């Protein structure tokens, strides 16, 4: 009755008692499902080099991508700083990408509104551009009280940057300065 034997052998205790692993800490504990399991890192389409986005140690990460989705993030052992290690946050960083509560579409709340509304990305960009120009105009100061040149607007402020890339901060500071906005700040002050 091969059916019974198969059934019996699917039982770890049976394998432990009859096989070469009496302590049940090796072969006997491995099921067919275990044997068939392949790590996500082994079947990824590609591995992309990245850096952890949390604290400033800058641990190197290997990002495993399959079917254009991030399937795993591991520490990169090549890094002279992190030597392959990641802390709990770095190890969880895949969930930053895949978090079920992540919001990936534009949300809009009108003045005095009580609920969010949806907006097209392009519409939102045009609306923001309208408001930037208006706020810049309203807050514009050509000179101070003594007639010294200011050439700036106090209508627009910005906060953020410590989690951004250098290239992003650079474009922000460049654009804001050209607009005349000076109240530009980031977490480094905090």
């Amino acid at each position, binding site marked *: 009755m091969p059916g019974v034997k198969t059934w019996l052998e699917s039982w770890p205790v049976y394998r432990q008692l009859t096989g070469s692993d009496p302590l049940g800490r090796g072969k006997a504990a491995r099921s067919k499902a275990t044997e068939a399991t392949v790590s996500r890192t082994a079947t990824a389409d590609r591995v992309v080099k990245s850096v952890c986005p949390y604290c400033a140690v800058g641990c190197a990460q290997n990002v495993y991508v399959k079917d254009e989705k991030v399937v795993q993030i591991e520490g990169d052992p090549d890094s002279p700083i992190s030597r392959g290690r990641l802390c709990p946050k770095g190890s*969880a960083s895949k969930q930053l990408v895949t978090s079920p509560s992540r919001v990936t579409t534009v949300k*809009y709340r009108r003045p005095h509104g009580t609920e969010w509304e949806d907006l097209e990305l392009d519409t939102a960009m045009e609306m923001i551009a309208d408001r930037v120009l208006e706020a810049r105009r309203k807050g514009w100061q050509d000179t101070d009280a003594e007639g010294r040149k200011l050439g700036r607007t106090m209508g627009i402020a910005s906060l953020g940057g410590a989690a951004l*890339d*250098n290239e992003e901060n650079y474009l922000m500071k460049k654009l804001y300065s050209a607009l005349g906005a000076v109240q530009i700040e980031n977490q480094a002050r905090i």
Partner: protein
Amino acid sequence: MPGLGASFGRGGATNFLEDLANSDCIVIEGSNMAECHPVGFQWVGEAKARGAKVIHIDPRFTRTSAIADLHVPLRIGTDIAFLGGLINYVLSNDLYFEEYVAAYTNAAALVREDFVDSEDLDGLFSGFDPETRTYDESSWQYETEEPPESAADDPAEAAEQRELDDDPSVRHSDQAQAAGSGGPPIPGKPKRDETLQHPRSVFQILKRHYARYTPEMVAEVCGIEPAVFEQVAQWVTDNSNRDRTTAWVYSVGWTQHSVGAQYIRTCSILQTLLGNIGRPGGGILALRGHASIQGSTDIPTLFNILPGYLPMPHALQHGSLEEYVADAAGKAGFWGNKRAYMTNLLKAWWGDAATAENDFAFDYLPKINGDHSSYRTIADMIEGKVSGYFLVGENPAVGHPNGRMNRFGLANLDWLVVRDLQLIESATFWKESPEIETGELAPETIGTEVFFMPAATHVEKDGTFTQTQRLLQWRDKAVEPPADARSDLWFFFHLGRILRARLADSTDPRDRPLLDLTWDYPLHGETQDPSADAVLREINGTGPDGRALSSYMQMKDDGSTSGGCWIYCGVYADEVNQAARRKPAKEQGAVASEWGWAWPLNRRMLYNRASADPDGRPWSERKKYVWWDEAAGEWTGLDTPDFEKHKRPDYVPPEGARAQDALAGTDPFVMQGDGKAWLFAPAGVVDGPLPTHYEPVESVAENALYKQQANPTVERIPGPWNRENPSMSEVFPFQVTTYRLTEHHTAGAMSRTLPYLSELQPEFFVEVSPELAELRGLTNGEFATLVSARTAIEAKVLVTERIRPIRLRGGQVVHQIGMPYHWSYSGLSTGDTANDLLGISLDPNTHIQEDKVSTADIVPGRRPRGPGLIDFVEEYRKRAGVQSGRVGLNGRDPVDADAGQGSKL
């Protein structure tokens, strides 16, 4: 940063994490490295395994303490007294590194005759103006060899600049931060007394200043027993000499104080006296808390600086490029090339429109004229002075102290753009904030229009972070961001594109800066993502032939070269993205120079010329790092020398030499105007040339050293929404400190929304000692309510011996409460917002708030809900003699309230 900048010339960690392995002693102070920088902490473990002593100085016993050989609990907010005690110990026992101090520091420099120390004015230095609460710093200056400013290109202009430096509107605009790369300009080189005996020499002033910081005084102020202090002093001094080095590690446990910059200055003085700067296993390692917080100051989104720590032009001082460079042009040190750095930035931004004839479009830059920092802006928002606000990966409703004040600010805008991954509290305040519950805010009364714009994660875009040791590391994009999510590079590029198109036909001169801007980056893919690589190359800069520059030494002031951030010049050397280099650690030496790229010029350890003696020989075989190779006629070693490669150790500047040529072969601090490490800071720190112990703004103890209780120049933002707890008040009898947990990240948007992390650290708690629990009837695992003049919050109580009451010499017992600050009402793991408890008072150098130490009361049970909360806190204010904290509609001043009003503009 001004702490390090004013001491050594650059506001960056002097050493790198891996180099900690070379330390013989590591002192971690103002940092819980094991829990907040866990992977970096492996290098402390490595050092310990090689026999190093590890000391942790912190009010709380943490995992860092558990690994340390010695944990020293000190009263929160007393680090200057402790470090001052060590300085006194080193000086009075002649334990300083004599040759190093004599050759590489300003110990021999003479200070002006009219300087009066805080020891003689009961806690104030000469030059204090009680009306503006700022210092006129002129008496702190060196006595100069030549008449002041005579070396400048334009001495009269330079003298006028210096005069204007003392104007309060300049003092408040945080120019000290410009010392981030290039120490503060000085009027000229000082007179020196090489015997260090002159009573006005820095060395003698220093000795007198710290003479009263004895072990007994340390015991009285910090609550550290003299025997424990002696142990620390012994380990540190035994491990600081030719053969041995000690490293100091700090984080925001130092910066977030009303005297934060001075904490770092005190450490800088100590480490300089011990000869630990610029040497392997030594240095001061500033551990930054965000992936690119170093980068976001190097290329700043900050009001007071431009890329490369160039100051933002000030209306009072900088009417033209000529005036802008007057304080530095022609003088000694690399600051002498300020004109070149600025011209290159202007060329990078305005290209062909920036010409010699129009001052390279200097006039296109807006001018500052005071404090435009974050908290000032929030107060302005409440007053309706600001129309629009961009929040880019930041959550002030939770992450800033005094969340209630911040939320009132958001409620009084015309519009708000939030760029983030999740619907953070700063995006949902209009319907879910605690003030909705108390009735102080309601959706119907808030006119703020909110745009939530979904952002890309770190794997959905290319770009560089600059991590804690000034290292730029490039990330490759792994996948496209989903749906409407976009990188911030995309957002700001396309916003700029749309704005430029709107104004294309404008003839208004105000629009020229925007229309003349170089704004043509290659675009990729379906979403038209701009090329981060092209932006990085612009930051690096290009020469007359259009090729990438390889060093800022190639930058010219005639407009023939351009580059967006001079200190990053070299990151694209040889047309190669050097930040993307990933040569495995195993295939290169310990310094790992081919992994990423560090500013400046891939120098991994700053000031490493000081690792050799004045003749250019290593101080010892054991600590050799960079040295002079006489045969080859150049500096060589394990790292890129942080020195001109061919400048001989015996080089003496000829008469009339300028910029770097005016620095000698024995001047390792090449960004300083005198080439020296500053024990005494004649410029660059607005609250004193020498660190002095002041009590925190909110303290339960009296200042044992001076009549002056707290930093006299501390900045306050008064209003009903930012009341201060009086010091030594029975109503707010306990000290509170805030901190991070390993499993969470700052305001929580990147951790409370992740299932793994929320499960690991599921709820808000506070740590109290068994003694305090007994005193207030608190039970482990039950709720307690904490109250300040701002608000009241509730948290679960963790009773633990990790927090000890501190017994001061006078018999006073100080109870301290530990409070992680990651929670709020959104996400998978929720709780009250710790930062709501804290007020905002600021370090005058940095405008950084004092949130590492405040006061509060703690009582058992949950806090009142609804409007009852307002009455509950108001009752506390009354008892403490604090003004009312009641506000009008949307947090406005009670008399000003006007239903539904948006901006007043």
